[in-house]
């Protein structure tokens, strides 16, 4: 099925992920929608428990039971993939969608050489002979910056340092040339000095191969460096989504504003770090209406107490989209503008 | 005092463990059966229809009576009698009692020794620790049954013949306990090592609190879970070990038979057709151990966060 050039590479529509527990059904991801265009890097940022990793897992079809996709659709190049049978989904994994996880040490099987693991992946998806596959594996290792690749291909994971291991992991993810990579906290387990190198590597490779990236992290710095657009998640919902520069410099959602304000910069001179009072609600106790309303300083600016009663959808707000009733009038205004224009 | 107890009971009833317990019919059945067996044997003098070890009540003409539902059976001997005219049902109850006493006592002793040594080893470290652990390692090379056999054998030589029967039960308990302490020691030692490095221990030392008190107050609660699992499974093993030793003839004397002894006796008469002398004690043993193992197995799964 040829994909139309205007259809985004990845479309997530109204995705809801639930966990049945003995205390009832927990909704970990509540009705989120977003797109990723080919070759684009979308950052997904948020606190622990906001639902970002689950979203990534759902896209590649590796959601662990009892978690399950309760409703919504996931489309890859216009084709629905969330309801595919196992064998179909398996063929997509690695070939169309790849993944990188947080801890490079535990991501690699300690009992096999990295060469064997890469060649195995290549042979699963591409129709190459063993010799060709091995040659390609060495090429990949070179690309990710492993020195003496032709020798190190026969080494075991424990013989590499942490940063090197993550490079191997990246080469594994790219082995079958997928169009989209889900990177779940790819730098969190690494030394700060290595993080920059890995980020640069990811950026470079994805530009060269035209791979789109869904970059899940809690580190805004990484997002600022790498992403084209960013989605800010809160309590299983998307609070704001838009171009990276805009979200960082002129955030529109009170949560994002708080986040940006909480990041200290070297030149600042404050006595206290600013923070958002309170904490993200537990999945069992998500407030009615807007999930952020108990901590929000602008609740009173919205008429009819909408924040505590109605859940806001993503609506245009400045140059981004924000799920906040503060921008409700602006949405109406823009619609009016569009209609009259 | 009762307030604290009531609070604890309420917390248990409210907990995840109780919830899981209620929902698993197999474990509930096993617990009920196990409790029934334990209670009936603990109060054997009350429940047993006969007292099979009171020589005055035995009548050889009653020997080899089949179970009550077979033609030649008598209703007063529900499960038949053995070669001495002893009622099988009563012997099972008394026999289970002996097995259970030995089993529980051995495990208790094992636990106490193991936990103590583990605490000492982990807390004081150094040469003492190395020594205890070496002993543990060496002992682990030998299966429990062998150690128990050795101790029994040695006791046989060392203790004068006349006192054999009286002390047999203590020797047995000691032998089984000696073969099982290592697992507790290792678990507790590992926990102690972890706790010892924590700052509150150093703080307590500075204040002048005695180290033993510190260990008991803080390390023990942490190891309670795994130790309970070990202990429950250990009881099953201990009972089997005791039955094996008795079967082999080096356990309890014939005057205080346990289920193992009865199985041995029953084995002799199996081929001549008096099957009930073997089968019922055998069944009782299996059911007893099985229910304990089911509970222990379930407990281990319930307390293990990884297996959910």
């Amino acid at each position: 099925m040829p994909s139309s050039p205007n259809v985004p590479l990845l479309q997530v529509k109204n995705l809801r992920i639930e966990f049945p527990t003995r205390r009832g059904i927990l909704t970990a991801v509540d009705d989120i929608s977003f797109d990723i265009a080919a070759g684009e890097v979308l950052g997904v940022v948020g606190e622990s428990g906001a639902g970002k990793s689950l979203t990534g897992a759902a896209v590649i079809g590796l959601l662990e039971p009892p978690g399950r996709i309760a409703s919504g659709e996931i489309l890859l190049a216009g084709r629905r993939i969330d309801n595919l049978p196992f064998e179909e989904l398996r063929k997509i994994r690695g070939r169309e969608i790849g993944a990188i996880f947080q801890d490079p040490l535990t991501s690699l099987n300690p009992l096999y050489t990295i060469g064997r693991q890469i060649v195995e992946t290549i042979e699963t998806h591409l129709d190459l002979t063993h010799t060709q596959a091995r040659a390609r594996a060495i090429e990949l290792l070179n690309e990710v910056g492993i020195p003496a690749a032709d020798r190190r291909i026969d080494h075991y994971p424990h013989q590499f340092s942490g940063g090197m291991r993550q490079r191997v992991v990246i080469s594994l993810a790219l082995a079958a040339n997928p169009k989209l990579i889900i990177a779940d906290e790819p730098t969190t387990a690494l030394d700060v000095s290595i993080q920059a190198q890995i980020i640069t590597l990811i950026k470079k490779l994805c530009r060269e191969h035209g791979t789109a990236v869904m970059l899940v992290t809690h580190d805004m710095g990484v997002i600022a460096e790498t992403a084209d657009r960013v989605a800010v998640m809160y309590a299983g919902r998307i609070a704001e989504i838009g171009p990276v520069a805009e979200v960082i410099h002129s955030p529109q959602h009170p949560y994002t504003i708080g986040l940006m304000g909480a990041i200290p910069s070297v030149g600042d001179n404050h006595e206290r770090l600013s923070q958002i009072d309170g904490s993200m609600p537990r999945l069992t106790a998500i407030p009615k209406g807007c999930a952020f309303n108990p901590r929000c300083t602008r609740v009173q600016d919205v008429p009819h107490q909408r924040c505590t009663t109605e859940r806001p959808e993503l609506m245009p707000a400045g140059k981004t989209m924000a799920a906040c009733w503060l921008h409700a009038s602006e949405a109406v205004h823009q619609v009016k503008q569009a209609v009259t224009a | 005092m009762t307030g604290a107890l009531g609070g604890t009971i309420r917390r248990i009833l409210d907990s995840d463990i109780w919830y899981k317990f209620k929902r698993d019919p197999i474990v509930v059945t096993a617990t009920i059966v196990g409790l029934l067996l334990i209670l009936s044997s603990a109060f054997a003098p009350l429940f047993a229809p006969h007292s099979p070890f009171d020589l005055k009540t035995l009548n050889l003409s009653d020997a080899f009576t089949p179970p009550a539902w077979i033609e030649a059976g008598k209703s007063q001997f529900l499960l038949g009698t053995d070669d001495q005219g002893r009622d099988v049902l009563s012997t099972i109850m008394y026999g289970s009692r002996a097995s259970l006493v030995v089993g529980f006592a051995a495990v208790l002793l094992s636990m106490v020794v193991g936990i103590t040594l583990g605490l000492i080893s982990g807390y004081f470290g150094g040469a003492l620790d190395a020594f205890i652990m070496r002993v543990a390692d060496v002992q682990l090379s030998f299966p429990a049954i062998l150690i128990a056999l050795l101790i029994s054998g040695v006791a046989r030589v060392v203790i004068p013949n006349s006192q054999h029967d009286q002390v047999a039960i203590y020797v047995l308990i000691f032998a089984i306990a000696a073969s099982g302490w290592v697992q507790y020691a290792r678990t507790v030692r590992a926990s102690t090592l972890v706790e010892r490095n924590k700052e509150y221990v150093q703080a307590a030392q500075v204040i002048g609190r005695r180290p033993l008190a510190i260990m008991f107050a803080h390390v023990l609660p942490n190891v309670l879970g795994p130790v309970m699992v070990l202990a429950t499974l250990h009881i099953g093993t201990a009972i089997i070990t005791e039955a094996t030793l008795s079967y082999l003839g080096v356990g309890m004397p014939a005057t205080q038979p346990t289920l193992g002894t009865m199985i041995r006796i029953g084995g002799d008469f199996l081929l001549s057709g008096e099957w009930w002398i073997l089968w019922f004690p055998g069944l009782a043993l299996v059911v007893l151990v099985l229910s304990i193992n089911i509970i222990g197995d379930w407990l281990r799964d319930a307390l293990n966060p990884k297996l959910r």
Partner: protein
Amino acid sequence: MLAFIARRLLQSILVMLTVGFIAFSLFNFVGDPVALMLPPEATQADRDEVRKSLGLDKPFYTQFAVFVQNALQGNFGISLRLGRPVSQLLAERLPATLELVGVATLLALLVGIPVGIYTALKRDHWSSQVLLTGSLIGVSLPNFLIGIFLIIIFAVWLGVLPSFGRGDTTQLGFWSTGFLTVSGLKAVILPAVTLGFYPVTLIMRLVRSEMLEVLRTDYIKFARARGLSNQAVHFGHALKNTLVPVITITGLQLGGLIAFAIITETVFQWPGMGLLFIQAVQFADIPVMAAYLCLIGFIFVTINLIVDTLYYVVDPRLRMETSSAGGH
């Protein structure tokens, strides 16, 4: 690698010395050592002479050294019960026990590993639940009871297998084997199944829990994320990682089986070392007990050494080569 083996060898020697020490204590402090070394008709003069020649008037450590020396040459004295040299008795019966244990272990592995894998991969299927319950029952059955039941079913009711003894054996040099005759092969089945019952359940549960553990790891998740087939994930990756710890435990099991054989040999009157040992315990035959102890210790230590070496070969992480400069 050499350093590794050297270290393990040293530990093994230490363990053997400890075991030897215990055996030595048995000899000296339990019962009269002089009586143990002599047949009962010996006179007092004989005893005094033996006492001196045994060096029983010498200090403790000298006696121990002598004991060790004797032990290394295989001299453990004379059996109180049978009046023959202990080493001879043990040598006669070693093949019987080893053959029994060998067959039992083979059975345990051939049945336990596949079943364990099955119950891990198909964990929610009802057949897995049945097998697991079966394994729980297996763990709760005492060895001797299983033997008795098997005898009842196969020897008494069906009459197809013998209920005791080893059948006809063939002598190959110093080793007497039961594998070359039909009756020998038939005779080993029931005892081997009895002995192997417990290890089967153990191995099955071990393999299952290890495999479940492995299937939850990140590298398995990553393997799936790369689109590897179920076969590649389960049997290529998971299986290898599962079996590595299973090797150790099975190896240790092997040693335990030799001791467990005591029970099985009793039930089936199998003429092995275990039966000899039990008779020694009943009779308080100290030399045999001590010798058996040393032999078992030796076997254990050897097995441990082999298992450790095997582990080393299989798990690349244990080979502490200096990794070439990888930079970052």
